[in-house]
């Protein structure tokens, strides 16, 4: 592909990474949701650009799903949940934001170095794309493990998954991308419904030792 196309794709992928960092940085729930919506939008843009470049029309579907489902539906649903559970206080982090940021930078550095080393023979575009998507995935995971709040962990998972979609879309001519994105949307829908239904479970780590004796008949 020509230079411009490459730069644009590069720009979008990098943008996605940047937005991931913004997400880690957020300490307000609603702000986080907004940033995530933005994350989804950037993703759909870059997927669409891939679709245009690779001339793969089915990728447009993926882009659309990303835009509509993750850019609009999920954020709204999460917003309602947040209001419902009354947890729009700031995000409860395990370690300080700053530390998390540093860790994130380390992770993206790791992934970029790794990818550049590993993908020797693949074409330049794929390498960049993979490097970015891997770091987005890692950042998503990082967010899941450094946030106590269920909603923000869901958000983390979804950003992780955005990274996957990015990688899939970047993989030239990869089939089943649409199916995969659909499958993932189902997964996420489940998660969100779960968060919504099991209000008991306001946070993932409600499993604390004190709560064990009452229902986990497994302590000696």
């Amino acid at each position, binding site marked *: 592909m020509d230079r411009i196309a490459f730069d644009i794709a590069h720009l979008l992928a990098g943008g996605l990474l940047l937005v991931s960092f913004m997400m880690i940085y957020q300490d307000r729930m609603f702000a986080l949701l907004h940033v995530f919506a933005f994350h989804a939008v950037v993703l759909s843009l870059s997927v669409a650009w891939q679709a245009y470049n690779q001339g793969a029309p089915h990728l447009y579907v993926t882009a659309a799903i990303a835009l509509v489902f993750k850019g609009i539906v999920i954020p709204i649903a999460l917003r309602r949940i947040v209001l419902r559970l009354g947890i729009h206080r700031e995000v409860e982090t395990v370690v300080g934001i700053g530390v998390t940021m540093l860790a994130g930078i380390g992770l993206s550095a790791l992934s970029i170095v790794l990818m550049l080393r590993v*993908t020797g023979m693949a074409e330049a575009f794929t390498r960049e794309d993979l490097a970015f998507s891997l770091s987005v995935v890692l950042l998503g995971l990082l967010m899941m493990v450094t946030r106590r709040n269920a909603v923000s962990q869901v958000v983390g998972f979804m950003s992780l998954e955005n990274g996957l979609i990015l990688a899939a879309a970047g993989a030239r*001519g990869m089939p089943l991308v649409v199916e995969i994105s659909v499958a993932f949307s189902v997964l996420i829908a489940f998660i969100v419904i779960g968060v919504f239904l099991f209000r008991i479970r306001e946070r993932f780590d409600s499993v604390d030792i004190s709560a064990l004796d009452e229902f986990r008949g497994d302590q000696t």
Partner: protein
Amino acid sequence: MSGPFAYQVEFIVGVPILAAALLAVLPGYLLSARLNILASLLTLLAALTLLVTDRPPPGAYLLVDELNIVFIVLNTFVGFTAATFSASYIGHELETGRLTPTYLRFYHAMYQMMMFGMNLALLSNNIGLMWVAVELATLSTVLMVGIYRTHEALEAAWKYFILGSVGIALALFGTILVYLAAQPVLGEGQVAMIWTELLGAAARFDASLLNLAFIFLLLGYGTKVGLAPLHAWLPDAHAEGPTPISAVLSGLLLNVALYAVLRFKMLMSANPGALDPGPLMIVMGLVSLIFAALMLYRRRDIKRLFAYSSIEHMGIIVFAFGMGGPLANFAGLLHMVMHSLTKSAIFFSVGHIAQIKGTQAITEIRGLTKSHPVLGWGLAAGVLAIAGMPPFGVFMSEFLVVTSTFSRAPALALLLVLGLLLAFGALLLRLTGFIFGEPTGPLKPSQASFVPLFAHIGLVLLAGIYLPGPMVAWFQAVAQLLG
């Protein structure tokens, strides 16, 4: 391909999904239970035909070869026996009001959905399709685990769900990487995701990309296999779900995930430049084995106890495949089959016991050989078998693993033996408590059928003494395949 067996493979995949659709709408649990059994039986028969007829050529989506035929037959068989067991089990749940008819309908539908997912995962010739199938199986089992709606059940389901999803995600990334490795060689599109193609061309792939991919795949599917430290979902999911599901989880789902790992291991070893996945698998196997063995000692819930024992045995199997070589691979396959049969048998008996005693607390279960001789000795046979006692099949596989390992890598063999011994001690300690001493708690006879239990025990016993020639030849072929 001709005659009645023209579409046997499609049949194996199709029957469950149709049955699932049908069961979703059928009222009345008796009928649906029977239909469940029937569907499983049909699937089993279809799978058995694979043994007699010559195999269909690999298609774009479905594939039958030496490796997965082992898994598919085992899968459908245990699926069938578990369905029979669940028919005799689930009625009692309805009486005690733990489940409502609606949930039962949902339960049976999900059961077939799960079977569909697993069969598809085993038969798929396309790594993307396999990924989707595994996710499907995971989702359906998640719903089954949470079916009791109790706090614990939801807790377990949720844990399973989250960890599973992350695993799935990692596996997908690995899959994408494999595609990227294949794409320059095989060209874009479908072709670069088809097993048979991948395996043929694996030698020319970018080795380092494959390495990276394997890490993600091992972690992703390894979460499903339940390797420590990715195991966290497994014990609770086993403990809180309905017992037939525990049996299926231990007996089948873990195998399916293992199957995926093995496939990619084959890919790795087909590529000269790639890392040898053996050491990584050996380490994870040993860690899982020893860790699970130690965890056995402090359990208070009988189903969780055997769930940890599943982790332990998955550790042994992964260790064996990591060691490689004809003996160890043979042992790994044998151990996998034996573990599926034995562990599901154990869960069958545990199901009856838990229903009789009305609890899963280990301290509440005493003197079964006195109060329920058949059940008690059945459990004893199962536990002794899983602990590696002859004349049961697990002994043969452990014999082969230990002896073949010690002459190659003594230190590893010592660690292996340490783990096995630890687990043996723990299981035996519990077993002594379960079946001996003065009985406690309710002593009402169990009305459930023991056929599935003793069918499995009988098979394991037979395999421990006599392995039929064809099966051996077939295992050896697979062992060669795995290298």
